[in-house]
């Protein structure tokens, strides 16, 4: 199942990567391995986008794109995010391929239970290779996660059949007084607002995870 080739580096289809593609791949891997801080403007954009309406149903474009991405993961189409998914796969499981999610789960269990595969010398040798491998199992997992986000979660939050009693207890809006243990200084208003916003932002994220059913 594993495709191993010597340099020059090649994609899963055996076509050598162009220098630009290789640069892009290296950048993606470096960003995943050693992420840098977001620019404040980008952070605000992401925040605004996340706050717009997190529970709205997937729109037509998102549905179409998720289907296209699924097909790309199955090797039946192309998608601009495919290279990133493959790069992440390679970082997670270099040289490993799985036909299905079960294979990936099995391997994750082995790792968690201290299986011997990690100590396998032949596996270590594969790790040092610069050849690009494809692991369909993980990409399928990523696709599944994307599909859950796009379809299952909106259904959970907008559906009317779910009983209210099954909703998790959410962190409530309340006084911020417990956040402050000392009297207020005149020139520290901004830092107080920063603190309030930061704490409530974490709580909003936690509320979303609870609504999504995340443990």
């Amino acid at each position, binding site marked *: 199942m594993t495709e191993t080739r010597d340099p020059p580096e090649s994609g899963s289809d055996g076509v050598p990567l162009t220098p630009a593609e290789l640069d892009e791949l*290296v950048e993606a*891997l470096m960003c*995943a*391995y050693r*992420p840098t801080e977001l620019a404040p403007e980008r952070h*605000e954009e*992401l*925040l605004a*986008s*996340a*706050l*717009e*309406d*997190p529970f709205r149903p997937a729109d037509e474009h998102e549905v179409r794109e998720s289907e296209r991405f699924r097909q790309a993961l199955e090797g039946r189409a192309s998608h601009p995010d495919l290279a990133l998914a493959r790069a*992440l796969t*390679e*970082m*997670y*499981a*270099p040289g490993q391929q799985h036909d299905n999610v079960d294979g990936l789960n099995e391997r994750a269990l082995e*790792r968690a239970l201290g299986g011997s595969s990690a100590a396998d010398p032949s596996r*270590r040798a594969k*790790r*040092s*290779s*610069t050849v690009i491998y494809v692991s369909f199992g*993980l990409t399928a997992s*990523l696709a599944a*996660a994307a599909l859950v*986000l796009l379809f299952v979660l909106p259904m959970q939050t907008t559906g009317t059949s779910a009983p209210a009693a099954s909703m998790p*207890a*959410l*962190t*409530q*809006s*309340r*006084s*911020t*007084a417990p956040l*402050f*243990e*000392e*009297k*207020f200084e*005149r020139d520290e*208003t*901004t830092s*107080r*607002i*920063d603190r*309030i*916003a930061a704490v*409530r*932002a*974490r*709580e*909003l*994220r*936690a*509320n979303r995870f609870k609504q999504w059913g995340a443990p």
Partner: protein
Amino acid sequence: MGGAMTGVRPISLLLLALAAVTGCARDEPTPTACPEVDAGTPVDPALLAFLGKARAAHHTADILEEQNDLDGAIGALSALLRPGALPDRPEAHEVVADTHARLADLKSQLERFDEAQRDVEAGLKLAKEASYFRGHLFEMRGLVEERRAKQLKKSGQESEAKKAEALALEAFEQSMQIQQKVIEQALPDAGKHVDP
């Protein structure tokens, strides 16, 4: 590149990938539930949107204040007070109360003392319970009157200046009483005499 890969912690990377998909980045532990989960309004995007706006307004005011553009800073903060812009949440009320306190400070620096006191009153209507927010507003009331007294003295209005000073002292005293009450609420044994 292969060498770098061998040092990678795969599980962390998988989590990173999933965090990127969900647009989430947790830099601190998740807040615990408990008293925060009483019936009420959950922390929601409307509140966060308001808090984000408040942050932007105060940071803008910081920059303008640094440039000695106090009128500009007042304008930036006043944008938070527009009718209909305030979500009915305790956090929003407290943030606006604190904003009124800052406005009172800025306006009194420009000798707009009556306006400054109106800001203090507006803030006190939002921060009704004994808290550092309320205590801070009384402190600002005292500061406004103290500045007014100095201005009156400069212009030779001694008796009016004395009245302003008296009001300042009264406000500072109230501020200290509120601060003490807050401390006692947080630490029930605070201030009690302990025999050796």
